[in-house]
């Protein structure tokens, strides 16, 4: 049975209308975007000089400039905020401080503090990001609370934001965020920890003894990257204990090994040699131990490396031959 003329005619008409509508939508979106670009160019022209002046103005002139930018209203005011937010990650020191003051004076801080309690996860995450950029003591409470948010995305952004805000009081909360139960990727929470000033080694020594493998892993990684020699013994103990643990975590052993290598902790040499040749250890753990051995200074390490080369697998040998 052939398709009837009526069906074909209706289908053609419907499709032509749909095509025309789609075409119109494409044209309208493009026109709107081009208009937006032109408007942004005009706004850029209007505020560019004043924003650049933030970098060089001093005292009263700076205060006046900040006040001018803070009191700009309407679409231009919104453009000031967007421009400053785009620029802030690129600048440091006094200029960054001036930009943050302008944003805070425009009410961005209070708006973000409100928005972090929004119903939508995306709004909460965006607010957490802004709070991290704005920094200061008052953002730490809401951001640490956001580490317990029901949305993983918000928790993840809050952890990163705490690193950007870089306040020492966030340390303990971020170590807790390393826990496997938090769902926050270890690399995110640990990276945030690396940015914090005035770190207390005791927090990490405790972390290395924690029951949670995520906390042990993060603490081990951070201790090595921050070259926290006060925690070297605890790090070594953690690695030894992990090897003997039922359900030992490869990533914890590898992180401990790498950090011991970074710290050049000589008492760990023989244990690292044992791991690098152990058939019980996974390939990644053996390689981490090999890298640690490679980084170890001194004659003892050199001798051990020579011995290990004879017994280790090809991957470890590749690493050690370099040393």
């Amino acid at each position, binding site marked *: 049975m052939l398709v009837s003329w009526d069906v074909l005619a209706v289908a053609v008409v419907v499709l032509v209308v749909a095509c025309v509508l789609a075409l119109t939508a494409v044209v309208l979106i493009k026109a709107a975007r081009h208009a937006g670009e032109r408007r942004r160019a005009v706004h850029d022209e209007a505020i560019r000089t004043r924003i650049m002046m933030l970098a060089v103005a001093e005292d009263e002139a700076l205060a006046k400039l900040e006040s001018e930018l803070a009191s700009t209203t309407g679409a231009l005011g919104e453009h000031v905020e967007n421009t400053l937010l785009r620029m802030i990650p690129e600048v440091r020191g006094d200029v960054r401080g001036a930009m943050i003051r302008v944003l805070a004076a425009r009410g961005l801080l209070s708006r973000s503090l409100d928005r972090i309690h929004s119903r939508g996860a995306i709004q909460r995450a965006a607010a957490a990001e802004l709070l991290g950029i704005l920094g200061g003591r008052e953002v730490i409470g809401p951001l640490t609370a956001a580490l317990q948010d029901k949305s993983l995305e918000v928790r993840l952004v809050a952890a990163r934001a705490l690193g950007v805000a870089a306040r020492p009081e966030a340390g303990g909360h971020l170590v807790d965020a390393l826990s496997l139960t938090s769902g926050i990727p270890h690399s995110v929470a640990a990276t945030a920890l690396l940015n914090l000033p005035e770190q207390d080694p005791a927090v990490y020594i405790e972390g290395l003894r924690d029951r949670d493998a995520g906390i042990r892993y993060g603490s081990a*990684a951070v201790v090595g990257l921050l070259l926290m020699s006060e925690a070297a013994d605890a790090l070594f103990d953690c690695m030894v204990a992990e090897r003997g643990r039922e359900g030992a975590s490869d990533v914890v052993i590898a992180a401990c090994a790498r950090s011991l290598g970074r710290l050049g902790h000589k008492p760990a040499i023989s244990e690292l040699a044992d791991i690098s040749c152990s058939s019980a250890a996974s390939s990644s753990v053996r390689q981490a131990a090999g890298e640690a051995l490679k980084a170890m200074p001194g004659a003892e390490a050199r001798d051990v490396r020579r011995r290990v080369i004879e017994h280790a697998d090809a991957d470890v040998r590749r690493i050690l031959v370099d040393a």
Partner: protein
Amino acid sequence: MENVLEPLRAAIRLLFEVTAYPVLAYFIVINSFLLLLIIFASVNFTAHLRRQSFAGARVTAASPLSPGISVLMPAYNEGAVIATSVRSVLDLRYPDHEVVVVNDGSSDETLQTLIDVYDLVEDRREVSVKVPVRGTVRAIYRARDTALPIVVVDKENSGRSDSLNMGLNVASKDLVVMVDADSLLDPDSLLVVSKPFTDDPERVIATGGVVRVANGCEVVAGRVVRVNMPKNYFARIQIVEYLRSFLLGRAGWSQLNSLILISGAFGMFRRDLVTQAGGLDPDCIGEDFELVMRLHRMMRRSKRKYRVIFIAEPVCWTEVPSTAAVLARQRRRWHRGLWEVLIKYRGMTFNPRYGTVGMIALPYYWIFELIAPAIELFGLVIVPLGLLLGVVNVPYALAFIAVAYLYAIFVSLMALLVEEASFHRYNRWGDLWVALLVSVQENIGYRQLTAIWRIQGWWAALRGKKQVWGTMTRTGFENASP
């Protein structure tokens, strides 16, 4: 004569009566499916764009804890571009990445160029064989300056897949990216494509970056700095085709967690899993597709939770064929690869054990990707024959064809709409008019040609004809600067 034609007319008439509805339904369902994928893709894009303000790329870029990436780059007679390609990869914004170039027995100056430009010295250390390789290694080189993270493996010619397997053995980082030597990467491409691994390290096993058409673009030092519409007819049509099928189609599949194809020009994988899966299959034409299917099968069989993600943000640009001959070779190869992979994994099709991959994605590829050119070709033969024999009413035939092709044009327009609302890389009004024009143009001639080429590829596979890769004749970029 009339006595001979009459039974033929009757047969054609019967054929029309039997197939009219199914063929029309097929066209409507295939385009509706594409439309559905575009809708899923727009959900994916909206989510992606709404998260842009807190993507955290800057923090990842500076973190020593970001997972390391080995960029695997097989090279065969790429002497003209290899130094620039490697430089552009070394310069990518990422805290921990290395480049592993595998010179696949090039007969040109590829290896010597690398040795000279990067001051390479022979590295005599052994390599452990985690994935079996066929090509014999002649030598491995490293930069004299150990701070330069480059390894070059010189081996006998054994093909792209085998070269990538060699690269896997030499790679030392947790993630591997497979790129072609002529791919042009955006500076943040590694950051963008590795982000899902950072955010969900337990479950994400592979990510695919979107590959866009580089023809006509302005290229400076291996980077696309200005996106233009190419002047070449074939290249222009492929822009719309890539947008519709690759960008939006794959983003849609990703949203359904059923992405089974990651482009060989830019795909990122967890090295341990690729190694565990045995690397790439050197005997398969669609080796990238085959690898992703093998990973799906491995993960589903072991009941592990996992995700394969497509990143819609433009990260990789590649030169597409601009002549009919090269395009024909490419399409024959693609279709042959599709057939080989679908046959190899036929046990997964309509198998609930493999979830949406088995129940939706694979059946789609069988019905709407593999068979589509056969249906198209059937129409190509039968409609003119019907017209010639006076069996078909001309206005009726035109209306029939109009329905099928208008729907295809509508789908292309929707793809342009989503692109315009999201990434809008073609900024000028002129680009839009050209894109609109080719959305219509591709239905006249191009579609039919590609259908014929795809059928040829399929036929060659059925006959077991040996596949020859052929040479991708590169015309270079219209506005390239060193």
